[in-house]
């Protein structure tokens, strides 16, 4: 069995002697007899390193891995982008991997500066002034955004566009039970959010926030200008869940007057990873900074006047504010943020634009090919960027299963809420910069077979 405890028997004996004990069991004498576990854990004995590796390989072999077994056209907040070698080689250096939260800034300038750079780029992408050092994922970033807005406005109602990722909305709903927020579902019309018209919302319980996704879950580009207008009209904050790749081409939510912009940072440096660890991106305007959830790194100087970085405005945080904290988050996703800034640094200004452009090109090409298939129609008419939804003549989940037999992960089967008629025939298809014309053509051919069966 692999053993990671250094103590030899002689050392254990010497240490016990030092503290005046004669056996290891005596270390636990303070634990009432009745509570002690007789006979130890019912967990299999330990294995050697090689055996663990074999076990893990066996488990890994029974999954369908993108690249190895499947060509991926699934997205929905989890995208199959290329991760350059530099990310694996530098972001995961053990100094970053095995450090704790930077409580001692003098010996944590590495992580702190990387986070400062990450915060800077997040703000540049989203058009915001402050960004935190990360939250758990896209969903938790939405929850924190809603909490911030409710606290800032003193209004507990949040209008949530149905274009927001359904699973993120489920998470919002779960946590709203604790905070008592009143979440109002705002429908989509032909792919984009149909906000309540003039007059509604200004009444008895006006919204504290509007939450919209950009582009939304169907891949459609929401009209943020319109949303901003509704927000101004109702006195609500505009919260935008933004695809950070999309803004390589699209105007930033900040440009449109968003107050808080959140996002799922997985596309930058993080493989699909079966859904985690991912990266909750969170940014807002400067006047909201004192309500910012999570950690914030700021620049300062040391006693010799040398530039230095430190976590700041800590009085927002749970360890100091306790029950009055702006959030309960403590451990976040720092390492994933470091991977993101390394990947972003590799992409650079031109590269991020090109990445988005290549996604958009592939999406256009794939959309034309798929809509060319008999019986397949667009699910929404609104313009898309890097993902699109179609209605199939067959149940979408079945189509996905059948496409898998062809070595293709066809997309994500949409729930009935997205197909007007209540059937589950919607398929969400994402195309990244990795997809070649040949793969897209093969996709269309396979899908045609599947739907015409």
């Amino acid at each position: 069995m692999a053993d990671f405890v250094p103590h030899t028997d002689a050392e254990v004996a010497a240490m016990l002697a030092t503290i005046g004990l004669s056996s290891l069991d005596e270390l636990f004498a303070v634990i009432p007899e009745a509570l002690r576990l007789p006979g130890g854990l019912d967990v299999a004995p330990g294995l050697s390193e090689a055996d663990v590796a074999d076990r893990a390989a066996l488990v890994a072999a029974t999954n369908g891995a993108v690249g190895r077994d499947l060509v991926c056209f699934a997205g929905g907040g989890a995208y199959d982008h290329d991760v350059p070698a530099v990310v694996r080689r530098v972001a995961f250096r053990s100094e970053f991997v095995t450090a704790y939260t930077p409580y001692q800034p003098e010996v944590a300038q590495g992580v702190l500066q990387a986070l400062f750079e990450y915060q800077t780029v997040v703000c540049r992408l989203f058009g915001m002034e402050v960004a935190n050092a990360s939250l758990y994922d896209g969903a938790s970033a939405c929850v924190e955004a809603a909490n911030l807005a409710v606290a800032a406005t003193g209004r507990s109602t949040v209008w949530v566009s149905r274009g927001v990722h359904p699973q993120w909305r489920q998470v919002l709903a779960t946590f709203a039970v604790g905070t008592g927020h009143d979440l109002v579902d705002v429908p989509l019309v032909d792919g984009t959010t149909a906000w309540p018209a003039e007059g509604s919302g200004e009444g008895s319980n006006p919204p504290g926030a509007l939450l919209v996704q950009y582009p939304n879950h169907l891949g459609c580009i929401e009209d943020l200008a319109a949303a901003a207008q509704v927000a101004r009209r109702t006195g609500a904050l505009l919260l935008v869940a933004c695809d950070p790749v999309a803004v390589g081409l699209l105007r930033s939510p900040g440009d449109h007057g968003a107050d808080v912009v959140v996002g799922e940072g997985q596309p930058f440096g993080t493989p699909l990873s079966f859904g985690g660890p991912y990266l909750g991106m969170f940014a807002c305007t400067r006047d909201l900074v004192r309500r910012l959830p999570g950690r914030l790194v700021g620049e300062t100087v040391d006693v010799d006047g040398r530039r230095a970085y430190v976590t700041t405005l800590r009085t927002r945080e749970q360890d100091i504010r306790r029950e009055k904290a702006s959030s309960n988050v403590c451990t976040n996703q720092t390492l994933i943020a470091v991977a993101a800034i390394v990947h972003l640094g590799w992409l650079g200004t031109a590269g991020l634009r090109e990445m988005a452009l290549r996604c958009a090109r592939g999406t256009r090409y794939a959309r034309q090919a798929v809509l060319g298939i008999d019986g397949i129609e667009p699910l929404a008419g609104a313009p898309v960027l890097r993902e699109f939804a179609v209605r199939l003549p067959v149940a979408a989940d079945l189509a996905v299963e059948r496409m898998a037999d062809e070595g293709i992960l066809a997309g994500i089967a949409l729930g009935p809420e997205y197909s007007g008629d209540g059937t589950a025939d919607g398929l969400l298809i994402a195309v990244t910069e990795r997809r070649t014309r040949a793969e897209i053509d093969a996709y269309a051919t396979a899908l045609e077979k599947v739907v015409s069966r």
Partner: protein
Amino acid sequence: MSLAGPGPSQRRPGEAVMSSAAGGKATGAPLMGRDEEPTLFDLSSPGRRAASFRHTGVPEWEADELVAPEHLRDQPAPVAEVSERDLVAHFTRLSHRQYSVDLGAYPLGSCTMKYNPKLCDEAASLPGLTDVHPAAPVSLIQGWLALLVDLEETLCQVTGMHAATLQPPAGAAGELTGLLLMRAWHAWRGEGETRRRVIIPDSAHGTNPASVTLGGYQVTTVASDERGCVDVAALRRCLDHDVAGIMLTNPNTLGLFEEDIAEIAAAVHEVGGLLYYDGANLNAILGVTRPGDMGFDIVHMNLHKTFAVPHGGGGPGAGPVAVSPRLAPFLPGPRPARLTDGSFGWDRPERSIGRVHSWHGNALALARAWSYIVANGGDGLRRVAEMAVLNANWLRHRLRGVYDIPYDRPNMHEFVVSAAGLRRRNGLRAADVAKRLLEEGFHAPTVYFPLIVDEALMIEPTETESLQTMEALAAALVAIAAGDAADAHEAPRTSPVRRVDEARAARHLIPTWDAR
């Protein structure tokens, strides 16, 4: 925008091509010259790039053919413009400005900064685990589901609970999940309105009260007694039928085992409350005793503490929550499940509180923990607890008479000393001890926590440090206590930067490079 760049020669105003700092110059640490490390933005030069993209054969439509003008940004979003060489050198140098477990001991109380076996890194980086889409149909994720079910069952065995959710991505998320389970339980029993308070000890970690608030409850703080444990009498006084439950850490944040836990459990259950176990200190009792056996109803674990998920400079972690049978129907879903035909699938608990994560939790962190448990096995896990507790008690003995030890009795995996006496005697504060320790090649303990101890230094050696490392750590702490305060105020002197002006950071907030 003022900026101390790397050397005058770098800053030729107006000379466009000089916009970038010197990416090939090692900076700010030994081997690395004396300058500050420039940022990615200082290193940027217009038009420089590292990225390249696959040849796909897809038609090369222009942006304006693909996006309507009102949506299209007129300028590319400014990111950075650096070469791969400068990018790599920059982050490699930053790594040399970062202390970590892999460089030395990290006795940061409450954080369980043990060494994380490299085999776990590799197990969690297999393409068959990393390259799996979270929305893939069950037929394509049988391996992942099997791993998660196996992990869930093992964690239940370790905690003595019945069922668990692996979705919470960290401890605090686990806490909030647990509190929502508490809420759902009481609501289902028709007491949703009447149960308003959650009790936490004054020694509790900050996330506990913060989570209580987010769970929609009011915090009632119960004092610790002179032994450093929950004052049972005081607890009984605040127990009533409006109490939803109590959150405890056992061993508590003083590293002391709550010996009266059985009595506490009985008292809380008597008024219909539930017991929540904050598992941050689980490392101390692996295979020795279990929260379930103590009477807890809800347990969260910090896999990034107990089960060797490295902390990543602040995360990611994983905070699974395990519960007793009666709470299982309320767990978040979907849950990985073993089906009758032996295959694996998803299952939604009948009265589920719903999702708490975008997908299935921090899956790769869960895979790391799984591999750590498989490697150690039941026997190995108990040895982990034994050596963690042995190291901590040994070190407490060594520090006797040097630092005040407010609760000087057998501790578990960690213990708290106070610099209050030192401060009185020669002006040495807990922070000074911490900074001096950095100079001696160790990370500092947790300082000023728990709040109930003045000038607290919370020390958790963990089981992976050897006796010889303990000796060196003890020697350093002893020397520091004997040292001169004026000298200590100068510390740290060997680190890439010296004491940082935290007040200034808050006063003139500079949250981004552009805000300079």
